[in-house]
C-alpha cells in the first residue's frame, strides 16, 4: 500500500463513519415518522368524524326513519337492516366456510384437485367486491328472482367473506397439535369423531376471531349492495328475508352522495354508530378469545 493511500484512508474512514452515523440517526427517525403519521391519520379521521357527527347524534337518530329533511333523518331502518343482513350472512358463510376448511385441512389429500381449490380461494380473496355485486345481481337478484332483498344481499356478502372465514378456520385447525389427532384415532375414534370432538373445540378461538373479522368486513361493505340494487329509500322495519332493505354503510353512502352539507353531518353521525358497532364486535372477538384461551388444554 502506498504512502498516499495510507494517508488518504483516515479521511475516507471519517466520511464513511459520518455516513453510517448519519443513517443510523436518520433511518429510525424516518420509520418512526412513518408509523406516527399512520397512527395520526387514524386519530385525525376520528376527530373529523366526531367534529361533524357528534352534534347530530341523539336517541332520535336511532329511532327515526330516513327523511328528505336532514334535520329529521334517522338511522333506524339501516341499523335494523344491518342486523338482518349480518345474521343471514353468518348463517350462510360460517358453516360453509368452516366445512370447507375442515375438508381442506383434515380430509383432502395433496393432489391437483386440492391445489386448484386452494389457489382458487386465494384468488377469490382478491376479487374486487363490486364484481361480487355483479355476480349477486345476475344470479341471486335476477336468475333466482329474489329481487334486491335481504336474502340476495346476504348471499352476495356470504360469498364475499367466505375466503376470509376459510383461511382463518384453516389456521385454527392447523394450530391443533397433530398428536391429539393420533391419540384420538388410536383410541378408536373415527375421523369425523376426531375432528368434531378433539380438533374443532381447541380451534374455535381462532375460527371465531376469523368469523368476527369476516362479519365486520361484511357489515362495512357498500359496493356489492349498490350493484344488486339495494340503494333505495327504506322507511319501514324489515320483517322477513324477502323484504327490501338498506344497511348502515349504504345509508351513509346515500347521505354522502347528496350535495347538502347538512346531510354530511347526518352521515358523520351514522359513521359514529357504525364504528361503535364495529368496535363492539372487535371487543367480543377479544373477549371470546380470552375466554377460550383460559380453557386451553395444552
Amino acid at each position: 500500500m502506498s504512502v498516499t493511500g495510507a494517508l488518504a484512508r483516515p479521511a475516507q474512514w471519517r466520511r464513511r463513519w459520518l455516513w453510517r452515523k448519519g443513517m443510523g440517526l436518520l433511518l429510525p427517525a424516518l420509520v418512526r415518522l412513518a408509523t406516527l403519521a399512520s397512527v395520526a391519520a387514524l386519530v385525525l379521521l376520528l376527530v373529523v368524524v366526531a367534529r361533524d357527527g357528534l352534534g347530530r347524534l341523539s336517541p332520535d337518530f336511532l329511532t327515526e326513519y330516513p327523511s328528505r329533511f336532514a334535520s329529521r333523518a334517522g338511522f333506524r331502518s339501516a341499523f335494523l337492516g344491518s342486523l338482518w343482513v349480518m345474521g343471514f350472512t353468518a348463517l350462510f358463510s360460517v358453516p360453509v366456510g368452516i366445512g370447507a376448511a375442515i375438508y381442506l385441512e383434515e380430509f383432502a389429500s395433496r393432489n391437483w384437485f386440492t391445489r386448484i381449490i386452494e389457489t382458487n380461494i386465494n384468488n377469490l380473496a382478491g376479487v374486487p367486491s363490486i364484481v361480487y355485486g355483479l355476480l349477486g345481481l345476475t344470479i341471486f337478484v335476477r336468475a333466482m328472482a329474489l329481487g334486491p332483498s335481504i336474502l340476495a344481499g346476504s348471499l352476495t356478502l356470504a360469498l364475499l367473506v367466505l375466503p376470509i372465514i376459510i383461511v382463518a378456520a384453516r389456521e385454527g385447525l392447523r394450530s391443533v397439535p397433530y398428536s391429539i389427532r393420533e391419540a384420538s384415532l388410536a383410541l378408536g375414534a373415527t375421523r369425523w369423531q376426531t375432528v368434531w370432538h378433539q380438533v374443532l373445540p381447541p380451534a374455535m378461538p381462532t375460527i371465531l376471531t376469523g368469523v368476527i373479522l369476516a362479519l365486520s368486513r361484511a357489515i362495512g361493505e357498500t359496493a356489492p349492495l349498490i350493484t344488486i340494487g339495494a340503494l333505495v329509500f327504506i322507511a319501514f322495519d324489515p320483517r322477513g328475508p324477502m323484504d327490501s332493505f338498506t344497511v348502515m354503510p349504504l345509508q351513509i353512502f346515500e347521505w354522502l352522495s347528496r350535495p347538502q352539507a347538512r346531510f354530511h353531518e347526518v352521515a358523520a353521525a351514522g359513521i359514529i354508530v357504525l364504528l361503535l358497532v364495529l368496535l363492539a364486535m372487535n371487543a367480543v372477538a377479544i373477549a371470546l378469545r380470552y375466554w377460550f384461551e383460559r380453557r386451553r388444554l395444552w
Partner: protein
Amino acid sequence: MMARPQPASAQRGALFRRGRGGLLRRARELPILASLLGCALVSILTTVGIVVVLVQETVGFFRAVSPWEFLTDTRWTPLFVEKHFGIAPLISATFLIAALALAVAVPLGLGAAIYLSEYASDRVRSLVKPVLELLAGIPTVVYGYFAISFIAPDVVQRLFGSDTVFNALSASLAMALLLVPMVSSLSDDAMRAVPGSLREAAYALGSSRWEVATKVVVPAALSGIVAACLLTFARAAGETVIAYLAAGGQPNLTWNPLEGMQTMAAYIAQVSIGDTPRGTLEYKTIFAVGLTLFLATLLFNVASQWLLARFREVYE
C-alpha cells in the same frame, strides 16, 4: 383482505386417511365427508359463476360494440346520446388513482413495517399493531366521507389549488390511508419471517442496526414486500366507494390528478344506482367493464402469488 398461498402440510391429509373405525362407521360418515367437499366446492362454483356471468353479458356487449372500439376509442360516453365505448378513460383513471395511492401508502407502510419489525420494543409493537389493524377494519365509506369532507377541501384544494372538490388526488389520499395497514402488515410478516440468525450474522460482521434493516432484512424479504404491493394495487384498483364519492363522476382521459375522473368500479356503481333496465346496451357495459376490472386485478393477484412461490426464501 390478505390472500397468501397456504402451503398445506404435505403429510396431514395422507396420514389422516389411515383413520380407523369399523367399515360401517366409516360408511356412515361418507355423507359428512361429501357435504364437507360440497362446502369446499362452493368456492369453485363462485369463481365459475363470476366468470360465466361476466363473459356472458360481455359477449352480448361485443355483439353491439366492436372490441376494437372498446380498446382504442378515447371516449367513454355510453349514457349520452352520442355514444362512445372506449374504455381508456376508465382504465387510466383506475390506474392513476391506484398508483398515486400506492405512492403514498408504500413508503408509509414499509416504514411502519421496518419500525415494527426492527426497531419497536415488544410493548410499542403490541400497541401500534392493533391500531393499524383498526385502520384496516374501517369501512371504505368512512374513508369516502373523510375524502370529501376533509381531504378535498382542507388539504388538496388548499395545498394544490385544485378547481374542483371532486378530484383524483383526494380519492388517492383517502385510499392510501386504507392501504397503509395492508402494506405494513404484509411487509411486517415478510420481514419477521427472516430468521434471526441472518441478523445476528450481520451484527457479528460489524453492521449497525440500520444496515441490518436495509441491507439484510429488506432484501431477504423483498419478494414478500413486492407481493404485498401487488396485492395492495389490486385492492386499490377495485375500490369503489372512495373513487365514486371523491373522484367525481365524469370519465376523463387525463394524467392530471387534480381533475375529476371516473374509475371502472365507480362507473359500475354509477350505472347500478341509475337502475338501468336489463338487456339494454348500457346494462351490458357494466359487465364488460367488470370483466376488464376482474382480469386486471386477477393479473396482479396471480403475479403476487407467483412472486411469493418463485422467490420464497427457504431457510434452515
